[in-house]
């Protein structure tokens, strides 16, 4: 993606509300860690303009198909568009920010 376009998108995204979904399967160490990491990143970078919905696939397995979930945990950014997916325990803050379009890839 041309750098100019990406920067413009980041600027536009900065003003929007983030609708985030975190898919997990039960209270595993990875899912607990992922949720903690996500909350911290959102508080730091998206204060007051984010919503997090946690979906436990153990309880709602039928929801895995719709968002094409394979890996867990998976964070899905539903808004702003386009849809983005970040998989893993979200321990690498830098890559989460890049994935959420909150920072330009170094």
């Amino acid at each position: 993606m041309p750098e100019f376009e990406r920067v413009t998108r980041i600027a536009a995204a900065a003003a929007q509300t983030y609708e985030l979904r975190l898919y997990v399967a039960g209270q595993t160490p990875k899912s607990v860690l992922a949720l903690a990491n996500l909350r911290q990143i959102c508080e730091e970078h998206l204060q007051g303009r984010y919503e997090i919905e946690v979906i436990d696939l153990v309880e709602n397995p039928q929801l895995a198909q719709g968002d094409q979930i394979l890996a867990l945990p998976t964070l899905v950014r539903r808004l702003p568009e386009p849809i983005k997916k970040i998989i893993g325990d979200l321990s690498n803050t830098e890559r989460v920010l890049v994935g959420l379009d909150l920072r330009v890839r170094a």
Partner: protein
Amino acid sequence: MAARRELPKTLTGIRGFDEVTRGGLPTGRPTLVCGGPGSGKTLFALTFLVNGALQFEEPGVLLTFEENAEEMASDVASLGFDLPELVAAKKLAVDYVRVERAEIEETGEYDLEGLFVRLAYAIRTVGAKRVVLDTIESLFAGLKNDGILRSELRRLFSWLKDQGVTAVITGERGEGLLTRQGLEEYISDAVILLDHRVHDQVSTRRLRVVKYRGSHHGTNEYPFLIDAEGISVLPVSSLALQHHAPLERVSSGVPQLDGMFGGKGYYRGSTILVSGAAGTGKTSLAAHFLDAACRRGERCLCFLFEESPQQLLRNMRSIGVDLEPWVTAGLLQFHADRPSRYGLETHLATMQNVVTAFRPTVTVIDPVTNLMTVGTSADVQAMLTRIIDHLKTENVTAMLASLTPGEYAVERTENISSLMDTWIILANEEVGGRHRRGLYVLKSRGMAHSNELREFVLTDAGLQVLDASGDPPARSRLEFVPERLVEHAGV
């Protein structure tokens, strides 16, 4: 200690495959089906699944990673598999898995539990006993962490065992490996290899059971066929040579010829070779045989590799044998094909399928020698052995016409003559400016038969063998002698 019992097996319903593996795939275990592009892996897997749902009351799950899933559904629809209908009837659950590497960022530890959740949900939804993963290796293109993928796949295959489902996992053939990602390392219960070769513009499909833990299986390569009826494997049947040897006799359709076989004709279920040069009357003899069988109300198949059915019907009418009413009555069926259209295996697999479907008691192949142009001599012998075996097992009396290039030359049929129970040689000779036809029974196992060379004529009332004495007296004796024929036959 008691002899080790074979593991339980699950029928695939794929014609021939269940015979080759003595009962199908290992129940409750994963089987790897691998092969190159277009080798029929997906079709094999889907047939296993659809047959399970329709024939064996075993619902199934299809987890497909293929990008063009809709295309796949329409491909199998042409074989009569209606996937949407099976889904609606809760006999099948389909989950299309898509992984877009471009929209995925990877950060930190993850596992593929989402895949497990989806699979478990689908299995529960229909109460599945069979699962197909097609082609799970696509995940390697979608996710970056090979280490995680490998350990998760290992976990997935053992999880499938825990679920007690019989699974087929397809894999694309790789360089020096059975599959690109070496899946054979994880799936050790059974491995099936499919192969699609094109040689001399003739395509040949083969199937091999590479591995089947705890089971006997044939290690041969088996030809298999994909046609309008789906997939079928051609097993080497009756290796033990345990055919029945019925004592019942069937008429050749020519009374005088029956007379040469002790007055009763051929043995039912035997194989008769009729060889001779062009125009010696092979097809006429076959037509009489077909006509006689149809008159007895028996079903007859006739494979033509030279003439069209219309040509044959017209020519036979000229000697007073009208086969058309039998075709109309559904007793006689023709299958005409050009030998060069497929490989030998495909021809014979097709023939086997037609025989299985039509269940004839009499089958004619005219001329079988035209098939021999399609393969090497060893291949021809192996394949003809298979079809003859199959016909014998089904107790079908078969007549094979063999076109020999020269007057007496029989070398082209040498490699199959040992498979024949009865061998009739036809010949032409100019004697005193007249065209004379001769017929000689070279061998006929298990019965007393004439050793004389007999003259015959083709009249508008059919083929008539003349009396050995040369009666009617006006005819002079035939000059050519049986010894010459035998000499040339190399027996």
